């Protein structure tokens, strides 16, 4: 039983990381109806930029590097919104979706041109010690990031519910044209959303980068976040969090308890199986708004 809980908790910790990436997707989808395939590439770019500021080109202190990285992501947000999305405003959403493919290639290419293709280590000086709570092994590193993620989510919720800008963003996500007609600047609202998504990408990039090293495959974490998004409902922030935890725990349990019978390595597609099931029974996800067009 203890072993079961250990696997479960480890899964939950990984799940938090998935939630972070899925959160970026959900934010942008809420505000601009764009399904952003470049979210993984954004995390990669953020990780690369941070390494660049920390060790590779400059030797800035950590806090300043983080700030600069966020600045870089802000520049990206402006470029994406004003150069790429603005000409595509009235086009069908599938075109915007495909444009994000282009953004993905651009970010990967530019990021690796500037910072190189080899894998880089990232060490923030967070202690990685294991300790036991009620007989269950836990890592302080995972807990730190769980805490950071929790702060981020609470901050986002407060921002969306209480501030003026947050309210404007919610209006935009409800109805673009109605928001425009009451005087909300659409493009500015989008920039804010992409900046927030960029900051979430920074956190995700840092979290995954410290674990796996900053390298090209960091962009692939997006593929883990997609089923999370489907399960939670594509436009739901709490959905992204809860589904992320579910997927993290579920895939870890499946790998440990079912994996040996079918050959192992099933965590690459197990979340997708769950996502397909959810799609079949509840196409709008567990927490999403029920506005999906039925075929």
């Amino acid at each position: 039983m203890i072993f079961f809980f250990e696997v479960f908790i480890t899964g939950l910790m990984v799940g938090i990381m998935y939630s972070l990436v899925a959160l970026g997707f959900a934010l942008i989808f809420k505000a601009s109806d764009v399904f952003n395939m470049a979210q993984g590439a954004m995390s990669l770019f953020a990780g690369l930029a941070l390494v660049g500021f920390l060790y590779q080109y400059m030797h800035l202190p950590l806090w300043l590097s983080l700030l600069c990285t966020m600045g870089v992501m802000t520049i990206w947000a402006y470029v994406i919104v004003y150069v790429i999305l603005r000409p595509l405003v009235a086009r069908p959403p599938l075109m915007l979706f495909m444009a994000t493919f282009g953004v993905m290639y651009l970010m990967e290419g530019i990021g690796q041109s500037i910072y190189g293709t080899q894998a880089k280590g990232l060490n923030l000086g967070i202690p990685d010690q294991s300790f036991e709570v009620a007989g269950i092994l836990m890592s302080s590193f995972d807990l730190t990031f769980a805490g950071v993620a929790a702060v981020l989510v609470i901050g986002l919720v407060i921002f969306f519910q209480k501030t003026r800008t947050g309210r404007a963003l919610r209006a935009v996500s409800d109805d673009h044209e109605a928001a425009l007609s009451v005087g909300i600047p659409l493009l500015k609202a989008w920039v804010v959303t992409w900046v927030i998504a960029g900051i979430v990408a920074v956190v995700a990039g840092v979290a995954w980068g410290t674990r796996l090293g900053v390298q090209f495959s960091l962009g692939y974490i997006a593929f883990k976040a997609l089923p999370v998004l489907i399960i939670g409902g594509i436009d739901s922030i709490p959905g992204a969090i809860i589904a992320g935890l579910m997927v993290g725990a579920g895939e870890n349990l499946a790998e440990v308890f079912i994996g040996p019978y079918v050959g192992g390595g099933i965590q690459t597609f197990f979340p997708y199986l769950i996502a397909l099931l959810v799609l079949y029974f509840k196409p709008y996800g567990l927490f999403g708004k029920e506005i999906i067009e039925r075929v």
Partner: protein
Amino acid sequence: MFYRECGVYKDTYAGDMAIFPIPLDRYGFTVMLILAFVAIPLWASDYFISNIMIPFYCFSLSVIGLNILAGYAGQISIGHAAFMAVGAYSALILYGRFGIPLLPSILGGGIVSGFVGIVFGLPSLRIKGFYLAIATLASQFIIQWVIVHWQWFSGGVFGTVETPDMHIFGWLLDTPVEKYYLALGWLILLTVCAKNLVRGQLGRNWQAIRDVDYAAEIIGINLYRDKLIAFAVATFYAGIAGALITFCYYGAANIEEFHVMVSFALIGMIIIGGMGTILGSFLGAGFFVLLPLFINRFMGIFMEVVPSEIRSNIESIIFGGLIVFFLIVEPYGMARLWHTIKDKLRLWPFPY
């Protein structure tokens, strides 16, 4: 000899339905065919044939499939490369293990892939748009996993299987030119099929579904059937393309060649080439195959000036930049540019 519709009298049904009603188009196409069948095998170097033309043909075939699905039927798929893998492995198993002749094996690879495609197309009956895109991404990962982990399919470590020698009626295909003809033959055959499919009843149904699906249903189109047929046809093409590229180009089936990034690249190809046109499939695939070569040639001049990091990544920057550029400036891709040129030619030498 002007490029004109004038003087083209469509006085038979066959004339009315011709793919190229304008004579100059027909001559041009004949020249291209002669080029492909006679000139290239005769005069091109082995490198050009086996490293440029064969992958170009195979990717074209795959992109035609994806274009039928995404460009004509409007069902986007980001797991297309996985179906190439299904075709490749099925054809290899049929040919190498069961001793079925080569051509039926390749066809079999396509058919198996088509059936798998129907299974993974089932979600399209309930969902569309991004949701469907993610469901098709699931097919990519599930297929990849099955091939890597189930020894029966892969037969080797990490899903790598060497292709055995190719025989057709006892004739060994081993030179690049022979492989070239194999790929070209399939390509021509299936392109003709695709062109006629998309301008027939089924193709019109697909376009209606793409444009407004409920309206299509109201005028009596069977959405479920036609969507599943679109998935079957698209994955059939992918399967054949996968089998061909494995037999003629890679020489070994390797799961890494059918990675998710290949699926993304295929989507990029239909955007750059032109959604919903057969011509666009060729342009997109040709562009994708030629891009690295051009960059190497071009960058060769500045070898010392440009740092190696940029040289190795400029490909994805250009590819991504062009996807965005075409979506903004010319959403129908390079095929549309060709159309614009044709419209200008019709009026030449007059301005309008």
